């Protein structure tokens, strides 16, 4: 069994330890004898139809995001085709913003988005920074809390039919007001929670792996459970931080 992963612009969008998410997926696949075929998708590399089971895009600083945005927006059709064809996706922070309709910065200038998610983002006055705790239900048997960290000036507004990734228990989320965080479109997830999102939320890592395999298998396969003691404790500590000092919606 094998999972082909396409990591978009890792040289440009990597500011919050996106490779940590990759390391977690790769190890958790290897521990179950699933081949993890990691491929970089950079400027000018085409996304061949049906090539990838999982697409990943991380976050960058404003400058790097501006360098990447036009190329990414030009991939709208190929990204649509990949997602419609059953690929799973995880977009984090800047990558999450750039997969929406557009990003408008403080000066009013707009970066084009790839339009995969039905949302748009407008930069606000104050950055929303802190630990976050979410409640997520991706399927009746895939639900739980997600502990992470957010650091974004952008306020993201979901379209009327868009589905959020999770509900904010503590922290800011998409805009600090709606109580929603991230966006979900089938097997594609977008979120502001950066850096070690997957290490301390192993159930989400496994959901993504399983959904990635579903493209070839038709159904998401059950995965053998792993020993996640350290992961659980890290999750617990990070959840506590979100309550004690995370940002607050309102």
């Amino acid at each position, binding site marked *: 069994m094998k999972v082909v992963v396409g990591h978009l612009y890792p040289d440009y969008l990597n500011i919050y330890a996106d490779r940590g998410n990759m390391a977690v997926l790769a190890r958790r696949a290897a521990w179950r004898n699933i081949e993890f075929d990691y491929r970089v998708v950079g400027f000018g590399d085409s996304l061949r139809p049906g090539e990838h089971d999982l697409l990943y895009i991380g976050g960058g600083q404003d400058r790097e995001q501006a360098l990447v945005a036009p190329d990414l927006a030009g991939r709208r059709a190929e990204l649509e085709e990949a997602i419609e064809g059953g690929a799973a996706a995880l977009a984090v922070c800047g990558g999450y913003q750039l997969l929406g309709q557009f990003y408008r910065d403080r000066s009013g200038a707009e970066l084009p988005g790839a339009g995969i998610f039905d949302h748009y983002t407008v930069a606000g006055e104050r950055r929303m920074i*802190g630990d976050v705790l979410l409640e997520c239900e991706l399927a009746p048997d895939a639900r739980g809390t997600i502990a992470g960290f957010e650091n974004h000036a952008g306020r993201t507004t979901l379209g009327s039919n868009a589905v959020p990734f999770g509900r904010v228990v503590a922290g800011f989320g998409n805009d600090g007001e709606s109580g929603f965080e991230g966006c979900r479109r089938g097997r594609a997830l977008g979120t502001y929670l950066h850096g070690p999102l997957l290490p301390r939320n192993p159930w989400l890592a496994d959901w993504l792996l399983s959904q990635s395999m579903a493209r070839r298998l038709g159904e998401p396969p059950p995965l053998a459970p792993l020993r996640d003691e350290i992961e659980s404790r890290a999750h617990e500590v990070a959840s506590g931080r979100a309550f004690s*000092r995370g940002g607050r919606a309102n």
Partner: protein
Amino acid sequence: MAAEILGRRLRLVHNRAGANLVSGVASALLGRRNADLGLFEVDEAAFPEIARRIRPRAVCLANLFRDQLDRYGELELIAERWRATLAALDPAAYTVLNADDPLVANLGRGRERVVHFGLDDPGAARERLPHAADSKYCVDCGTPYAYEAAYMGHLGDFRCPACGNARPSLDIAARSISLLDLEGSRFELTTPDGSRTVELALPGLYNVYNALAAATLARVLGATLDEIVAGLGRFRAAFGRFERIQVGDRTVLMLLVKNPAGANEAVRTLVDGGPPSLAILALNDEIADGRDVSWIWDVDFEPLAECLDELVVTGSRADELALRFKYAGLDETRMEIVPDLGRALDRGLELTPPGGELPLLPTYTAMLALHRIAADRGLVRPYWESAA
């Protein structure tokens, strides 16, 4: 280092203990009134306010690495604030810049009285940029820089293949660099007044950069080449930065780590100095450490994970460190998670053979706490005494 060079000629007031915000500079000034020169190491975000208040005769900008993004925001933003600060300086003030850092070097364009320092030794270069390299795209046109030599993080002899933006020529350079394991380093200091060999009692390429910055700053403030070479030779490790603490017949080697670039260099220096089989890593998440601990995933810990037989992780976020090493490939059975710093230190010493050296890599507040523990046990003088 600059204080060591200048301190024999001038009465200095400086914030040696590392209190580098406005309050720290103010208390240093209150503490010593009849000084000839104020010398302050300042926090990157506090620099604009401090410069506005003290109106410096010279400013030295060493580098810009990603550090505590939760607190400072993005590098470009800091660089823009620095640019505005430089524009408001006294026109007679000197600006000392690290020419090897594209964002920093760029701040000197169009300014008078700028002095550039940098490394000039392709033999000390790395094969490629590390993962955490930040400013690797041309400040003018966005094309990836080509590096004639990449020394540390994104620091190096850079040139944009598209528009020609390039490292400025060096006024003060380090050549023929020899890194002597964990003991120190040696290099040729090249200046307009001639070249001399500098012997540093500090290991690692980043300390060569620190020495160059100090030498260049001291020179614009009137130090002679003799004073520079002698001062750098006399300098000993500052508090927590490659500090050796004797505990009976064992030695603790403390290396402060606080951002990916610094941690990469600490790991590289340790592994190059004889791969350790045991280490303690301490991660706290107070404001001074960075509340966002995601930076540990940007550190290239893998070379350390490969050589360790045993790792003790400690601090308030010990579990996160354990995860970092677990996913770097270190087996869980080789890790001990001991959140309490004092107990972790004891455990590390227990595992160290007599006569052995125990590397200890703490973040800032963990370093302070460990120092306090060592002082309580009578192993070191409290830092406020050694800093006096």
